[in-house]
């Protein structure tokens, strides 16, 4: 149960960061933190259930997170080229 509490804290920190940060890279990092909380959960459940599929899921999440980071950084780089900044509030052409 302790591990679930740790993962909850980690997930909460990530969610808080993702919702409050203004720097796009910092938001990306916060989301990675949330994914790590999920990984921790999966490994913990996999161990208590004595079932391997949770650990396999973790491996897939790590791979997907790497792809996500690559795509995300490419998009953020393009944002920097277009707006000269990676502050998400500066990119505000589209609204109501």
């Amino acid at each position: 149960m302790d591990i679930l509490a740790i993962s909850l804290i980690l997930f909460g920190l990530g969610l808080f960061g993702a919702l409050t940060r203004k720097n796009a890279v910092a938001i990306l990092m916060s989301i990675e933190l949330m994914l790590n909380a999920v990984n921790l959960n999966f490994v913990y459940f996999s161990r208590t259930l004595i079932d391997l599929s949770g650990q396999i899921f973790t491996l897939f999440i790590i791979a997907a997170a790497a792809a996500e980071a690559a795509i995300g950084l490419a998009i953020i780089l393009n944002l920097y080229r277009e707006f000269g900044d990676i502050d998400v509030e500066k990119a505000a052409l589209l609204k109501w």
Partner: protein
Amino acid sequence: MIFLPELILLGLALLILTYDFVKIIPSRRLLVAVTLGGLALSFLSVFLPFLTESASAGSFLSNMYLVDSFSIIFKTLFLLVGLLVVVLNYDFFASAVKKHEGEFYFLLLTSLLGLILMVSSPNLLMIYLGMETVSFTSYLLVGWQKSVQRSSEASLKYFLFGALASAIFLYGVSFFYGLNGTLDLSRVAAMNIVSPAGFLSILLILFGFGFKIAMAPMQFWCPDVYEGAPTPITAYLSVAPKAAGFAVILRLLTLLNIDLVTLLALLSAVTMTIGNLAALRQRNIKRLLAYSSIAQAGYILIGLVSPELGYSAVIFYLIVYTLANLGAFAAVIYLAEKLGSEDIESYSGFARRSPVMAFAFAVFFLSLIGIPPLAGFIGKFLLFKAAVGAGFLWLAIVGVVNSVVSVYYYMNVMQIMYFRNGDESAVKIPAFISLAIWVCLAGVVALGVFPNILF
């Protein structure tokens, strides 16, 4: 033989990617022809099992992959959408983007493959991987016009919200796994959703799919992304991932046999009301269609409250909505190119310049409103009937009131096209766009007059 549609799609995607690298014969027409040909082949091979009567339905790869009538319906729908989007893209690319067309089709085909994987599996791992395949490729497709600020911004917003939604979805999946000891939805004996952890896990999983279908309260990304994305991609995003999200929710509800009707009814009412009220004040046609698609998702959610009548109504309405929305976007692509504007006011008097185009536009909008004898009427009728049958009379009334509200903004566009004065020089519609429009028009009318061909 079983995986033929998927294998053709994968092979085609890799072929296009290699072609784009090597470019032995640099020709746009060849590229589009190969893409369309491969997609058509994949589309036809979906029906192959029906002709040979071989053992086609069943589960494969230790229940990771299902080939059943449910997944076949959605496969057909996605491949049809793929064909129409490539057709729409032909003229759009020639005028607006011009660069990296091969990679563009590669990503589009990969995205289609992801959609197919997503709806064909009862396993949450496979559903997650399919969903991420769709998401990653769509983030890139939305930002395709790299030198356009709006496109870059839309892509960033889509990426950040999408990544956040998938992390939250995964947190729900991890609890689902911990509680049930399996990721396979069909092996869950009885899901206890009364316990806080069980309810939380289902809620978070629903959140993940809710993002894809733009269900309230996860609809806020939708208008920005739809406005900033290249229009063929907006058309694609407004129909295909939405249909896939609904397909997975349907699979979840049928396999787990859980009772979420009250929650879904509330979400449905909130989603359509938000979509319709916000659409009333839009001046940009793509934003208007974005809010209209949120409202349409709300109508489709109505069907989820009734397992007996509603689920088939959901599938029917998804098909009808797909055709009408793609047709409307085909017209938008053409008009944006011709008039150089996505502003509704700029459509003044367009009916006199191209009566056919204006008529088609009107038919698609009338179908989205739900006017007989068009297919949208049958679809909405089935959904509302399902709600009443399940004892949700109030939801059907909310749906009808919302449809009436929606008449205003759809009619407003038509009124501007037909009754305002503008430029009167006649215009010609490019062959590809008119092909897409005719296909959608035929579908919308045929399904309205003969709805039985689907059942």
